[in-house]
């Protein structure tokens, strides 16, 4: 039986959702029997591949780089899953949104810096005016709220998706869970 091609992506989040995924512990072996992890911050592949069956995305869309990535991921993925509150609601990354972008930059790169304060123009991707949930940019197929969703929730969702079923998530998790 050919294995399902799975990926995970890390946008503007704290990596907590990935940690919770790792908390599947020995259940990761059950998942590994059924999937090939073709791209993830947890594996050493640099380019997001073509023809991915299932992608879990952690984090809000906050920078031009995030936006570029999520559009590409969407194009190359059959089933896209928003994993965790940052992807689903923009959550903590979104707490900067009431403030103008310049105030954010000044706070981060000038006000709290004593040595040569400057706003980076290279290497660091420019921020979008607002940090927003993934589904405000691309179509999302499954939503798993939670900060982070528990390992049990992730395992349940993956097990269902791997069997070709839609998980019923509201009984298992909620915003802030």
């Amino acid at each position, binding site marked *: 039986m050919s294995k399902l091609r799975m990926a995970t992506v890390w946008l503007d989040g704290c990596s907590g959702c990935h940690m919770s995924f790792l908390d599947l512990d020995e259940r990761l072996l059950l998942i590994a029997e059924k999937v090939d992890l073709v791209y993830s911050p947890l594996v050493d592949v640099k380019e997001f591949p073509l023809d991915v069956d299932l992608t879990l995305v952690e984090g809000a869309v906050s920078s031009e780089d995030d936006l570029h990535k999520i559009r590409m991921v969407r194009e190359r993925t059959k089933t896209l899953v928003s994993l965790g509150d940052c992807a689903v*609601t923009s959550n903590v990354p*979104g707490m900067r949104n009431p403030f103008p972008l310049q105030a954010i930059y000044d706070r981060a790169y000038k006000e709290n810096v004593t040595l040569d304060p400057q706003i980076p123009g290279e290497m660091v991707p420019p921020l979008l005016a607002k940090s*927003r949930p993934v589904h405000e940019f691309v179509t999302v197929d499954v*939503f798993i709220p939670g*900060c982070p969703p528990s390992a049990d929730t992730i395992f349940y969702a993956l097990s269902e998706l791997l069997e070709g079923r839609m998980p019923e998530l509201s009984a298992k998790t909620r915003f802030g869970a």
Partner: protein
Amino acid sequence: MAKAANIKTLKIDGRDVSARQNETILEVARENGIFIPTLCTLKGLSNVGACRLCLVEVKGTARLQPACVTRVEEAMEVTTNSERLQGYRRAILELLFTERNHVCAVCVSNGHCELQSLAQKLEITHVHFAYRYPEAEVDASHERFIVDHNRCILCTRCVRVCEEIEGAHTWDVMGRGIDAKVITDLNEPWGSSQTCTGCGKCVHVCPTGALSEKGKSVAEMLKRRQFLPYLTQMREEDRS
């Protein structure tokens, strides 16, 4: 004792139920174990019909009726859970989430919030509308309490409990529409309020983390609401 003539009979979701004549649809539904979602109503306070979550269909009228302020009538036929109503309820809740900045993960009321638990109960896993991300104040000037307008849903429970139970009327609502907000005194810092007695009733009736006690961290703010029915019951004679 209710006299026989004061009993009304009606149908809720096809079930025959009986009610005292002054009861609201919501009260009768609850007595019969029929769930209608609510946010602004609270037993022991007057009803204002602010949140519209309790809208139900009544046969013979095209308009939806808020169950918390609609009195039962003889032979009424009420529907509480049609697909149309479910759609409206989800939309109302989703709009509440977009209107202010409810970041559940870092809220004092995480896990004990009526907005959050209702969203889960109505199977909301994400919000279909664009979030507004408004700039909203946090007033921590009071010695013991905090008001975080990011988390207020304008249910006006605080306003009602302060006026009706405590008799202080420190809280009120200022502005209209999207600019509406709850205020203390004449929009002055809570800490310098001349009328606030510091009783804390507003904090405990608030359904979200908008009102909290100082010193509480994420998920630590547990609200106690049991006091309210007792207080009103004890005062019933004065009030009638």
